[in-house]
């Protein structure tokens, strides 16, 4: 089987940042090397086919000691949906109490993914 294409990626799943070499074969399979854990392999496969990102930002809170609460997408969403997701979150405001992990917005930007709080607000 002839190797077609060799690409170097940096795994962004954790701060170790493994340098991953992906070789694409003619039959469409990918050969992933250099990752230190399984996450790296998943990342490399996705990055070459349909790149995704976890989005972290804040949402306005009314009537709490801090004016914002940190939130994240519960899992990664398509990279080209990131800005749309941010835009949707700019338009909302929540009120306390907020539990850690509570859903703030369901199905953000039609991605099928929820936005959850990453900190509790009393």
């Amino acid at each position: 089987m002839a190797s077609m294409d060799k690409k170097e990626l940096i795994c962004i799943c954790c701060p170790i940042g493994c340098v991953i070499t992906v070789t694409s074969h003619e039959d469409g399979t990918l050969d992933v090397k250099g990752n230190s854990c399984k996450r790296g392999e998943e990342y490399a496969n996705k990055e070459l086919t349909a790149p995704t990102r976890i989005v972290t930002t804040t949402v306005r809170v009314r009537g709490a000691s801090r004016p914002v609460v940190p939130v994240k997408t519960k899992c990664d969403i398509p990279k080209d949906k990131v800005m749309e997701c941010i835009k949707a979150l700019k338009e909302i405001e929540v009120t306390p109490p907020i539990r850690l992990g509570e859903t703030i917005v369901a199905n953000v930007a039609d991605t099928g993914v929820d936005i959850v709080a990453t900190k509790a607000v009393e």
Partner: protein
Amino acid sequence: MDKRVDILIVGGGPAGLAAAVAAKKSGADRILILERDEELGGILNQCIHNGFGLHTFKEELTGPEYASRYIWQVEELGIPYLLQTIVIDISASEAVKLVTAINKENGIFTIEAKAVVLAMGCRERSRGALNIPGYRPAGIYSAGTAQRYVNMEGRMPGKEVVVLGSGDIGLIMARRMTLEGAKVKMVAELMPYSGGLKRNIVQCLEDYGIPLKLSHTVIDIDGRERVKGVTVAEADENRKPIPGTEEYISCDTLLLSCGLIPENELSVGLGVSLNPVTAGPVVNESLETSVEGVFACGNVLHVHDLVDYVSEEACSAGEHAAAYARGGRPAEEHKVTLKCAGGVRYTVPSLICVERIDKEQVVRFRVGSVYKDVFLTVYYNNTVVIKQKKRVLLPGEMEQIKLKKVEMEKFPDLKTITVAIEREG
């Protein structure tokens, strides 16, 4: 409040929390955490991005989520803490340490502790350390201050941004401010390599098309009241601006991300010896400083980029503090000095007492510049005992190596352990 404790922990960030939990789990009873902020969690409260704890919890958490995992444990174990309480002095007399702190409720008070764990974290290098001439207009912030504004106070420092320095906080803030609607025009880095993690260059700059200019620096800031722009120039190998390469960039905000320094005023006051390379305490295998019974962990010891390592290190400091408070540690008989060679800038610890190691000793270190295809070699006296091939070693990333006690015991006259970077094929 108990005026006498076994272990007093200064700082309630990830280091202080993990040290407290570990000390409690290894049997220490009277523990107290003193934290100057209004909540536990330290700097993690403002680090709302993900990437924390993948190796500890097998889950990719944000800073506040990672902190809550430890805060829960502290609550569950019933470890007492005082918030908005600033430690202003620590002194040691014989085996007792006196910790003086101040808060609204109690005024100034002193607590007697058998052991103290220093976990004060670090602060950012300020503009003063950078030597940019000119006025001090509004619009210049350290990246960490900007992070606190945006992520905790919900306000934006400006609209058009230049970041000087490519430390992680600067890279993360370049993305954060872009998401919040600002235009980040460039990240300028004086050195020929980035001080930040590779993953942050990919996901914070490349994802958003923000240029990273290596070997570039800001040589002038325009504006009297508010920043109007900055002049950026290329730097030569001696880090001096090259005439003719100047470029003016209009902006209203300059973020400085020029590295962190351990916060050791208290340690110095106590008489703890500092390592000039890390600006943190010199420690032994127990993460014990030059003052017996005083331990250090986290960013106050040396600046970390991986919070998992902070927790691991702090856990070890907590266990050793508990052992000290309990009494009956093995006597120090066999002391070994750790040395650095060929590009290794420092090691933590820098002294090992073999009797006091459990099974293995983690040695953490950083290198001074970028190394490719080299060997990480460890010598016991003059004998090579470990030789690992490394594809890349970067100054921005902390490395660690584990040394086994059984191996050390094979060298009865072990005096020095040398950690070196070597080129040879």
